[in-house]
């Protein structure tokens, strides 16, 4: 029983990290219609940054904030490449973000080499109802919960957040009332970078990160975001938690080598079920 609880809590922490990556995808997709393939890259950049900054002796807190800021800047750059030019279709933008991700490989190898790197996080563990859980896991869960609350407040209560939502629901109408849709798109990309960076900073102490970890991150994040049809953050959070728990349980009860297949298979099934419920016409670009 206590093993089950341990797996459940660890799974929730893994799911929270996935949720952060996925929420970045959702924010960008909602506002710009672009699926950002470089979303995992932001996490990798932040993770590598934090390992370097801590290595230089810069204290905790400052290093993490700086790394997240770097990731947000990377998000902004990706946004400039993906939607900076007018008349870039969402699918072209997807291919551009694919290119951004590969370009990031080159930069990351030059700066950090191709070996996995780790960073010290919160040490120690707590015992909760007989289950041992690392403090870092609790931190991940706490930060994710706070982030989702802040996101909900931002989108629901602030002028800027409402402008972003307006761009998402009808870009033409948003332009008519004087919202700069492209600037909002870039803002969404920066926000996506920030969320990805947060995930990277939190995950790096748990599992070492290398330049090509982004494929696993983006695939898991996309799988979670697909639950919410790439637009609904709360469903995405639920999807991510499910995915994290399912993967951790699979690993914990001895199917560890099939962890990736579980996640990917689940994603494909969800996508196919969703596609069969939508009409062809509604998916076509008009």
């Amino acid at each position, binding site marked *: 029983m206590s093993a089950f609880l341990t797996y459940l809590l660890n799974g929730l922490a893994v799911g929270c990290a996935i949720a952060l990556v996925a929420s970045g995808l959702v924010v960008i997709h909602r506002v710009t219609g672009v*699926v950002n393939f470089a979303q995992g890259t932001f996490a990798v950049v932040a993770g590598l940054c934090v390992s370097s900054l801590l290595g230089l002796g810069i204290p905790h807190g400052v290093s993490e904030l700086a790394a997240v800021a770097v990731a947000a800047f990377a998000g902004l750059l990706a946004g400039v*490449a993906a939607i900076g*030019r007018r008349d*870039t279709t*969402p*699918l*072209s933008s*997807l*291919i*551009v973000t*694919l*290119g*951004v*991700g*590969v*370009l990031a*490989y*080159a930069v990351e*190898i*030059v700066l950090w*080499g*191709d070996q996995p790197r780790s960073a010290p996080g919160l040490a120690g563990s707590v015992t909760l109802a007989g289950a041992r859980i690392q403090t870092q896991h609790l931190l991940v869960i706490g930060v994710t919960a706070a982030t989702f609350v802040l996101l909900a407040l931002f989108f629901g209560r602030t002028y800027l957040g409402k402008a972003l939502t307006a761009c998402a629901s009808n870009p033409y109408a948003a332009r008519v009332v004087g919202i700069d849709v492209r600037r909002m798109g870039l803002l969404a990309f920066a926000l996506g970078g920030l969320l990805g960076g947060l995930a990277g900073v939190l995950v790096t102490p748990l599992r070492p990160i290398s330049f090509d970890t982004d*494929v696993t991150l983006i*695939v898991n994040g*996309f799988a979670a975001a*697909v639950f919410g049809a790439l637009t609904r953050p709360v469903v995405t959070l639920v999807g991510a938690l499910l995915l994290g728990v399912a993967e951790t349980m699979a690993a914990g009860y001895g199917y560890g*080598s099939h962890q*990736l*297949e579980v996640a*990917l*298979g689940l*994603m*494909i099934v969800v*996508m*196919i079920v969703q*596609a*069969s419920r939508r009409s*062809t*016409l509604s*998916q*076509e670009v008009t």
Partner: protein
Amino acid sequence: MIGRVAVPVVAVVTLALPAVLDDSALAVYILLGLAAMVTVGVSLLMGYAGQVSLGQGAFYGIGAYTAALLTLGGVPPLAGLVAAPVVAAASALVVGTPLLRLRGHHLAFATLAMQLILLSVAGQLEFTGGDIGLQGIPQFGVGSWEAGGAAAYAYLTWAGLALVMLVTRNVITSRPGRALRALATSETAAASSGIPVGRYKLVVFALSAAFAGLAGGIYCYYTGYVAPGSFPVLISIQYIVMAVVGGLGTIWGAVVGATAITLLVQGLDGLATLPGMPSYAPTVLSYAVYALVLIGMVLFMPRGLVPALSRRRKSLSERV
């Protein structure tokens, strides 16, 4: 007019090159031909049927593993080479039936997931040799003749490429080809004019998989070795880069794109291995080239090299 002059010239140069190139240049020449073969399929799929596949490397891998397993099991290499595209196409039919209900970025991620699953499975199964892969694959041969040198593989590769291009040309100019172009622009409109959209998409998917499978088959005989590491996700991205560079939906564009990218990466490789360069230089440069070329082309020349050049030629001749 120009096509009538260019095709024989290209054919003669292609046939003459293996005789004059040395072994290391031949290796590039063969890999270039194989990449072009896969890229023709990607270009057909993306340009005509409007579907993005980020998992074309999976079919390349399936072809390679099929040929390798059969030949190691004692089947004649020719049968192995024939089976490679057939098995790849059959698996595309099986995988494509559910997957092709998806479109756009969903399909892109689903095909990527397919390749990741395949790589992971091939790395764990006993009979595929796990992460180490299969070694000691016999040379390709027909009857008593055996392909000894690289030149033989070069001819084999380019014969395969010619076959692939011919099949593609015939498909495009036929009635189904017109139907494909129609469904790339609007599936609803195509379906309402009586085009069996689902079946056509599936057939093109299988055809592009067959091309990749054939290339994979030749690859396994040439290198004598296959492993999951030979078919990384990056290889699928590389085919997309080549197809986009050459121009989607053009047969020659795929060949031009594959040639341009391969030569560019090779040239930079030569530069990167110069004394004094850091050891990571070749990897970094090739990543950077793929990325910058892909971004640059999609943003500034979305129709690709071949259509852009032929349009310029047309406008020049009109001015004259």
